[in-house]
Each structure stands twice: as structure tokens, then as C-alpha cells.
């Protein structure tokens, strides 16, 4: 009898152990066959705010269930969406655990700036990033086209059929040659290595013969006798090709110290792009020096690059969520965090000055009737098919940069004509909106 009871007790013990496993330790919450996973799409959820407390994403009641609605702006690439049929993406996905428990996110985004950037970009396919260089706060992150989180049901098939890929986040996943914007790094490296001086003189004939291949200036324009400073402002390929050849592998190290070719430490998933490991020939070096060839970057990487220059050489970790609050847990606050000192402050300030020159007298000059003191550099990434990609990286104001911008327009044409006006408008909006 005693043994029989013991045997029964052991059977119950086995059940106890197994129950404890399934109820307390197993993780089946997000299994695709679990209907509870889909039920969560109908539940109330925390709000996502911009930096001024304006709601970007809210839940509204629809009878017994809740549905998500979004501010009317280009938000799908950063805030994302949350939908019973189409799933979740962006911050909605990254912070799902918190949001589903009713906690709110306060982002670093500025809804008005986000809208201004979207408007400036217009119908063009491209990306805009605005960021505070001294903290790493992302103020605006626009990739166009985007999807509208409020109209997923109505437009889903159009989105799928759209060959401009509205689901592709061009800021984090678009890979482009940086074009002449990369000359800011080449110039800095050359100064740091003592290869050139801002006032050093060059003879620019408009093209440069390397072995049996030729590097041209834009439009093969000959600048004649020219200082390095002006060569930067006018974006002389001839001069920068020679600087890059002199730098050789040191140029690659400089690129790597700016994080090119590597994934940016950022909340949103992003691509590392491509930076070659070795320079095979002078021609390759020249190509790298003018941002063509093998080098591929994301607009996010370029934003981080210009932010580092504008922040006197200190690279700050970019972030988009500054606070998670609500519920029973403590508030979670993101503090600005520096990643590395890439350049000495004086060197960074030299390049800032060169970019200001480019903005006042060079290719980054604005033809808009906007008064703004800014510095910047344009780029025109030549590609084998179709029109070139237009780039602009810039900062404002000159004295103490408060905001940086990166603009990319796919197949937009030249940086000066297409990207600069967009960048100026965004910088201007950022400075006026800030206070």
C-alpha cells in the first residue's frame, strides 16, 4: 500500500515538474500558431510621442478592441506600424514589450521637422536625416517613399507593387557611393598626415591621367591654379584624387575610423555598407578619394560622419528613443553617449571651415532666398545606369553647430541643384523649430 501511494505521488511529482516547465519557463508567446499572438494587436497600447509631446502613434478604441493610428507624416521607417494582418516593424516592434504593457515612448523626433523634411523631399525618392551632433539625438529620419500606417488595408497591394520599394528604409538600408561628400574625410586625413595645407597650390587641368584611365572633374571643368581649400569648395576631383593616392591605405583607416563599412550602433537595424580592405592601384585610390568605386555607404553613416565633424571630432551614438515611461517600472532614460574621438578638435574645425567655404563660394552654395549660416558639402554619385544620386551633408549654425543634415536623392542629378535646397530647408526648419 505504502509503495502504491508512493508511486502515485511520484506520478503527481512528474506532473508538477512538467507543469512548472510549461507554465513558468516555456516561451510560446510569439509562436505563429498561438492565437494569443494575434490577439495582442487588438489590445490597448502605449503612445509614441515626439520630442515635444505630440503623439506619433496612439491606440483608439473600436468597440471592444483597439486599433493603432499614426500622425500624418512619413513615419513608417522609424516609428513603424502595428497591424493585425501586416505585423509590426520599427519602434513598434523594437519596443513591443514596453508598449504592450501600456508604457509610452518619448522619441527624439520632431514631428514638425519630420513633416518639413518630407515636404522638402517632395515626390523624389530619397532620404533625409537630421540630428543633433552634440548628443546624437535623431530629429528627423525620412525615407521616401514610405507606407502610411493608417491606410495599410487600403493600399497594401499598391505598396507591394510599387517599384520604388516603399518598404525599403533608405536611411538605414540604402547603399550608395558617397560621391564628393567623402572629400571632407579625405581632406581631414590629408591635413592630419601633413600631406597638404589649406593654402597649398595645385594645378588643375580638369582631368587626370592615371595609367591609361582618366579621372575627370565634374563637366571636365579646369580650375587652373587653385588652393586645396578652394579645391574642396569647388569639389575638384583632380586634386582629391592626388590626395587620395598620397594617402594610400591610410585613407582606408580614416574611413574605418568613421565607421564606414560597419553597422552603426543604433536602435534601428542598419547595413554596414562596404569599405574595401586594400587599395590595389592608384586609380582605385583616386576613385576612393572622390567617393566612387567600391565604397558604399548608408545615409545614416554619412549623417554620423558629418555629425562627428560638426561635433569637433567626437562621434556621438545616435538614438531615437529618449525615454520609456509608464507602468510599474522605473522610467528608462537614454543619456547621450560618445562612441569615439575620431579627430582632434582643431582638425575638425578646419574641415568645418572648409565646408563653410563650400557653402559660401563653392558647390554647396544655396540659390534659395533663405538667409542661413551653414557649412556643407555636396556629392554627385555617378552610377552606371540612370541619373546620378545627389548628396548633401551639412551643419548649422557655423559658430556652434546645433543640427546636421544628410540628404540623398536617388537619381536626382547633381548635389548642388537637387540636394542642397532640400538640406538648407531642413537645416533652416530645424533651427527655427528648435525654439
Amino acid at each position, binding site marked *: 500500500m505504502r509503495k502504491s501511494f508512493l508511486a502515485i505521488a511520484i506520478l503527481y511529482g512528474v506532473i508538477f515538474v512538467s*507543469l512548472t516547465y510549461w507554465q513558468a519557463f516555456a516561451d510560446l508567446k510569439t509562436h505563429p500558431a498561438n492565437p494569443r499572438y494575434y490577439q495582442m494587436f487588438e489590445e490597448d497600447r502605449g503612445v509614441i510621442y515626439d520630442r515635444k509631446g505630440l503623439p506619433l502613434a496612439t491606440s483608439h478604441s473600436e468597440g471592444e478592441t483597439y486599433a493603432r493610428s499614426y500622425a500624418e507624416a512619413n513615419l513608417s521607417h522609424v516609428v513603424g506600424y502595428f497591424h493585425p494582418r501586416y505585423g509590426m516593424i520599427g519602434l513598434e516592434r523594437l519596443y513591443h514589450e514596453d508598449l504592450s504593457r501600456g508604457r509610452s515612448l518619448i522619441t527624439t523626433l520632431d514631428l514638425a521637422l519630420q513633416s518639413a523634411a518630407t515636404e522638402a523631399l517632395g515626390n523624389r525618392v530619397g532620404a533625409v536625416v537630421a540630428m543633433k551632433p552634440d548628443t546624437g539625438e535623431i530629429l528627423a529620419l525620412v525615407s521616401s517613399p514610405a507606407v502610411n500606417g493608417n491606410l495599410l488595408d487600403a493600399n497594401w497591394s499598391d505598396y507591394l507593387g510599387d517599384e520604388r520599394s516603399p518598404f525599403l528604409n533608405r536611411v538605414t538600408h540604402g547603399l550608395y557611393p558617397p560621391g564628393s561628400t567623402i572629400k571632407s574625410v579625405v581632406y581631414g586625413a590629408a591635413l592630419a598626415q601633413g600631406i597638404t595645407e589649406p593654402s597649398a597650390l595645385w594645378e588643375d587641368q580638369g582631368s587626370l591621367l592615371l595609367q591609361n584611365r582618366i579621372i575627370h572633374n565634374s563637366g571636365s571643368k579646369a580650375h587652373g591654379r587653385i588652393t586645396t581649400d578652394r579645391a574642396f569648395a569647388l569639389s575638384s576631383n583632380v586634386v582629391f584624387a592626388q590626395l587620395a593616392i598620397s594617402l594610400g591605405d591610410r585613407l582606408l583607416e580614416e574611413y574605418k575610423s568613421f565607421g564606414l563599412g560597419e553597422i552603426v550602433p543604433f536602435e534601428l537595424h542598419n547595413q554596414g555598407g562596404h569599405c574595401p580592405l586594400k587599395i590595389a592601384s592608384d586609380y582605385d585610390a583616386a576613385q576612393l578619394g572622390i567617393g566612387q568605386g567600391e565604397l558604399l555607404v548608408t545615409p545614416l553613416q554619412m549623417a554620423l560622419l558629418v555629425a562627428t565633424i560638426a561635433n569637433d571630432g567626437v562621434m556621438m551614438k545616435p538614438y531615437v528613443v529618449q525615454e520609456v515611461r509608464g507602468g510599474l517600472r522605473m522610467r528608462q532614460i537614454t543619456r547621450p553617449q560618445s562612441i569615439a574621438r575620431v579627430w582632434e578638435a582643431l582638425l575638425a574645425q578646419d574641415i568645418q571651415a572648409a565646408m563653410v567655404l563650400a557653402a559660401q563660394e563653392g558647390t554647396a552654395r544655396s540659390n534659395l532666398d533663405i538667409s542661413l549660416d551653414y557649412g556643407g558639402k555636396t556629392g554627385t554619385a555617378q552610377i552606371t545606369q540612370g541619373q546620378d544620386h545627389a548628396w548633401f551633408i551639412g551643419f548649422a549654425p557655423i559658430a556652434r553647430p546645433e543640427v546636421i543634415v544628410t540628404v540623398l536623392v536617388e537619381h536626382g542629378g547633381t548635389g548642388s541643384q537637387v540636394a542642397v535646397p532640400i538640406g538648407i530647408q531642413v537645416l533652416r526648419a530645424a533651427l527655427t523649430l528648435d525654439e
Partner: protein
Amino acid sequence: MIRTPYRTWLEFTGWLSFLILWLFLLQGKIWWWQPLVLWVMFMVLFFLTKILSFDPGAIPFVAILVLLGWVFLTRLNPTWATAQTVGALVGGLGYLLGIWLGTRKPRYPLFWAGAALALLAVTAFLGTSVGGARAWLTILGFRFQPVELARIFLILYLAQYFNEGRPVWELGFVLGASFLLLAWQRDLGPALLVFFVFCWMSLYARFRWQKLLGYGVVTLLAFGGSYLWFPHLRSRVLAWLAPWDYLDSKGYQVLQGLFALQSGGLVGQGLGGGYVQVIPNVHTDYLFAVMGEELGLFGTFSLLLLYLSLAFWAFRQLRFVTDSTKQMAGLGLTLLLHGQVFLVVGGILRLVPFTGMTLPFVSYGSTSLVAQMTMLGILVGLGGKRGAQDDA
């Protein structure tokens, strides 16, 4: 176990009122008379048992189980709860009948064997088929499952077989015919359960390693044969071994049960908070998963502790039994009850293939409840009359 019955009842009533109030807040409307009638009935059974000098110790546990089942059935569908109430009331009579039966000297083994075989045969040939097994018999509009009673009769026969030195061929015939009839009805869960109880009783009567080995071989052979013969057994086994490969078909029920349990976590989603409408046969086979989701690990632990307490009570009861046939019958009935709990809960937890039986006293199934309460009565009766010393 030094506690007054009054205190047990007080606590029990408190917990129950709490749950029923919760249920009322949840549903807005419940049939108050049902828990009230059940409560009064268990109260009457308890004091009647006590007045008749039997041990009433198991009644509060069973009352909690039945009323817990009632609460969850009401939460799922009040119609099921009503049927359950009726089952429990008939079960009350079964309980009294069981006490009477338990006090009698065990006799007429062939009567019990014959009755069991007759019930099974009638079901096999005139039964109604529900959900793959032809296990129901409809008489005057009432549908019931004779196998629930038949297996009690089989246990009573087995107890006498082991104590009276009856011929083996007789045992072979009775068991063989029963298993064939159950297989014919495609009701393999009870067959398995009775077979295991038989093995256990046989080993208890006289332990031999050879016997244990023999039973193991027979189990494997029977399992292999059934696996080839019965397609629904095959799909159950596949659902047991690899539910993830059959998400939408064979494995669906098992997985939904596990999802429910997992969702319950430690403290549960609260009564009515579970997402359980997706589980097939939730009121019979899978009520335990609902409890797991809504009451959490604490709830399921408590539920199993109630069963364990019942087992403890039953074995304490059997200590006082001097008649070895009665003792054997009591052991068989206890094993039948707890074996069933193990197969049901273990099936839901994927410890064993799922056999599709009810959770004793809790799941929907009037016949099962009547049979269960009759078994309880028999156990109370077997223990015999005692003085009031146990309740001091």
C-alpha cells in the same frame, strides 16, 4: 489531519463564494440555484456520512473539485454547467449506493464481470458514435457512457479474482472480451487505463519480475498492433511525438493546450481572461488547460494537490480495511481515478499520448461524474464504520 469538519466547510464555503462572485461579476448572470444546490448536497452527504460513522474526509475535496468544474463550465457555456449539476445530483445517489456496496462482503464475481461485458457489448452494437468513438448509449433520450460504469465493475471482478484463486482462462476471457469490445468501439483510453490498473493489482497481489517484464512486452505488442490497426491512435501518437509538424491538424489540440498553459504563467490571466475558445473539446478533454491559463501555476498546483490529498485519504482509508478483497478493490478504484488524472493531465502536458478522457470530478460528463462519485462511495464504504476519533 487534525481539523474539525466545520472549519473545513467554512474555508471551503469562503473560497467558493469568492469564485462564484467573481463568475457573477464576469457573466452578469448566473444560475445561483446550481452552486447552492450542489453545496447543500455535499453538505448533506458530508454530515450523513459522518452520522453513519463513516469517514467523510474526502467530501470537501470532491466538493471543491466539482464546484470548480461547475465554475469553469459556466464560464465556458452555462448549459454544460447545468448538465453537470444534474450529473452531480445523480452522483449523490450513486455515492450512497456506493457506500452500501462498499460495506457488503464482496461476492458474485461473475455477476460483475457479466454486467461489465453486457454493458460494453450493448454499447458496441447499439451505441452512438461521438467524436470517433462509439461509446455512447441513448436510453429514453438520455445519453450516457456505459464504459464509465463497466470499468468499476471490472475492477470489482479483478479484486475478487486475485483473492479467490479463480481460473486464469476466466480472467483471460473477461479481459480479452472487454478489450476487444472497447477496441470495437474505438475507445482506447479506458482500455489502456483498465489494463494498467490490472497490471498494478496483479503485481500488488504477488510481485514477480517476470510478470512485470511480461506486462511490458504485452503493452508494447498491444500498442504496436493498435498503432497499425487504428488510424486515430496513429494520429494521436504523431500529435504527441511531433505536434509542431502538424500545427493545423493532428497537433492542433495539443499545441493550443500548451499555449493556454504557457499563457497562464504563475498566477494566470484570471477567470474569463483566457483565450480558450480555440481549443477543441475544451469542456471535456481540455478543461485543465483552461484552468491553467486562468488560474496559473498556483491554480493547477492547488488542483493537483486536491487530487493528491484524495489519494492520501484513500490510502489512509485502505489501511483500516482487513478484508483483502476489499483492500484490493479499493486499491484498484484509487488507481483507476488517479491513473485517469495522470493520463489526462499528462496527455495535455505531452508526457503521454493524449487519450481523451475526462478529468475526474471536474470535466464535463455526467456519466463520468456519477461513476466517479459512486467510486468514492465504495471507497468510503470499504473503510467501514469507525468511531468519531478521527475527526477530533
